[in-house]
């Protein structure tokens, strides 16, 4: 029988590096040249099937613009299983910003979080400011996954998500929140408010005191 896993994936990086575009390419295989800065972020999921038929479902969180004035809530990455930290290869300052997000994750997130550093806008390599060597060297020092992508052409996009899916500790039970989501081996440990809210109403008259 094939196994199914669900993981929380968060996106981080400076505004306009292409976080939402990467997700749009990954989930819907679309690209939008005039994408507006993210507000009204949808809650997206995408499933990756690995060679051994294991399926990994990503529950993808986009920042909803809260990072813009340094106001991202720690809740955002608190129990993330993986993070894709994006920079724009044509903007060296965006790599600096990515590094500061990585430091924040190393300090505050789950110690087992899988972090991928992603250099986006590969189609604009003529205007490259961040060399592959520099980014790769930094990623190796910090023990991160690394890859370059173009959300515009699609190059490298599924590769980066697939490598994350492979790297996530498939045999170990996923950490707290991921592990209690439906569909994850191990089952729920928490309580499901939604389910109870619909089914529970009539139970009031049946006291179990």
């Amino acid at each position, binding site marked *: 029988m094939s196994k199914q896993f669900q993981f929380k994936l968060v996106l981080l990086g400076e505004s306009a590096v292409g976080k939402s575009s990467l997700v749009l390419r990954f*989930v*819907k295989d679309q690209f939008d040249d005039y994408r507006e800065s993210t*507000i*009204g*972020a*949808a*809650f*997206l*999921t*995408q499933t990756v099937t690995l060679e051994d038929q294991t399926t990994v479902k990503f529950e993808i969180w986009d920042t*909803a*613009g*809260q990072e*813009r*004035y*340094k*106001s991202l*809530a*720690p*809740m*955002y990455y*608190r*129990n993330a299983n993986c993070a894709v930290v994006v920079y724009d290869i044509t903007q060296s300052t965006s790599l600096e910003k990515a590094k500061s997000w990585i430091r924040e994750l190393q*300090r*505050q997130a789950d110690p087992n979080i899988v972090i991928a550093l992603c250099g986006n806008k590969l189609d604009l390599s003529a205007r490259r400011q961040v060399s592959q060597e520099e980014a790769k060297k930094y990623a190796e020092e910090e023990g991160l996954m690394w890859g370059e992508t173009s959300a515009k052409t699609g190059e490298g996009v599924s590769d980066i998500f697939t490598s994350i899916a492979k790297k996530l500790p498939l045999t170990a039970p996923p950490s*707290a*929140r991921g592990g*209690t989501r439906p569909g994850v081996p191990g089952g729920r*440990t*928490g*309580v499901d*408010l*939604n389910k*109870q*809210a619909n089914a*529970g109403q009539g*139970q*009031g*008259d*049946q*006291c*179990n*005191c």
Partner: protein
Amino acid sequence: MDEEYDVIVLGTGLTECILSGLLSVEGKKVLHMDRNDYYGGDSASLNLTQLYRKFRDGASPPQDLGRDRDYAVDLIPKFIIASGELTRILVHTDVTRYLEFKQIAGSFVYRDGKISKVPSTEMEAVKSPLMGLFEKRRAKKFFEFLQTWKDEDPATHQGIDLDKDTMSTVYEKFGLEPGTQDFIGHAMALYLDDDYKKKPARPTYERIVLYTSSMARYGKSPYIYPLYGLGELPQAFARLSAIYGGTYMLDKPIDEIVTDADGKFVGVRSGNETVKAKQVVGDPSYFGAGKAQEGGKVRVIEEGKVVRAICFLKHPIPGTDDADSAQIIIPQNQVGRRNDIYVALVSSTHNVCAKDVYVAIVSTVVETDRPEQEIQPGLALLGPIHEKFVSVSSLYTPTSTGETDNIFITRSYDATSHFETVVDDVHDVWKRIFGGKELVLKKRDVQVEA
């Protein structure tokens, strides 16, 4: 900051974040600011560094407490009632998606120097030492009366009028002993004092029904609690607000509430920038609470004080069957007070502290000028206390509704053990903002894709 907003929200406490989220969903253009660099205001959960910054003048936390990131210590001890109003808002806004909840393992009540579990099954009720055999029969009749009550069926009323008869009258009718009344009124109806007995019985009836239906929902206690602490609640509603276009700015000093010649709200000044909006909503600390008034308008007044002691223990609370979480209620009569003392316990099971650490918060409404002594009966139940942080906070309430000046101020977090009054405040502020229109919870469009 040239943009103009519909509403500026000041402070990221739970009340403000729920309002901010609901206002953004309603289509208002919201700017949400906080002077702190963290979410939650007075209802935040702090890590060790933040806790020691607040209570120990920035001293560094002792090594033996473990890692900073493992801690999320609530400043205000409250639990969520499983069938209560906050649960309803969480479900309707779909904010549950960002959170995960666990049950609180047990609810206990203090009686004659000992604590006993509030029975959660019939077996427990039969075995409970809280009542003698005959009193149990009387209590059974009383609960059966409440359970079978139907407004439209006078046969179920047993001659009682819930809207006219006082709760005392109802207790007398069933011949319930004072100890049982303490237990029902304080551990189940969750009243802080005994004033309810002299009032019509209906609200008490409703509270007992809420308690028992919440108890029936998950079994062990009527309470649930979010993993990673209560501070997750404001953050989750802030995300809702951001997703619907709300702009967030933390770490922003708020220097002035700017008004026009008639005293009507114009904007908020931070440094030498002023942001304009039609309305402002905020917690009392942004409107002069606790500061000496210098000729300005008095916008909030103090209604009372609450004392709270956050205690780190290295063991569960004795007598709770090693519960990983619990509420203990000490009814006021039991210790000769006017207000109950509450103990709220959570632990690493809720991802709020390191393994083998237990966080207990003892709190009560201040009645004397020696508040720390007032919580002594609660502290005495805890066993050895590893570390203790005591605070006395004022409860502020706005002096005006805001309808004339467009300044809508929320209330401080009170001494109750749950969030029902917080939701009442949300409803109240909403109504004031919208000139009397009630808050109607609409189901959010579900945006799940792929």
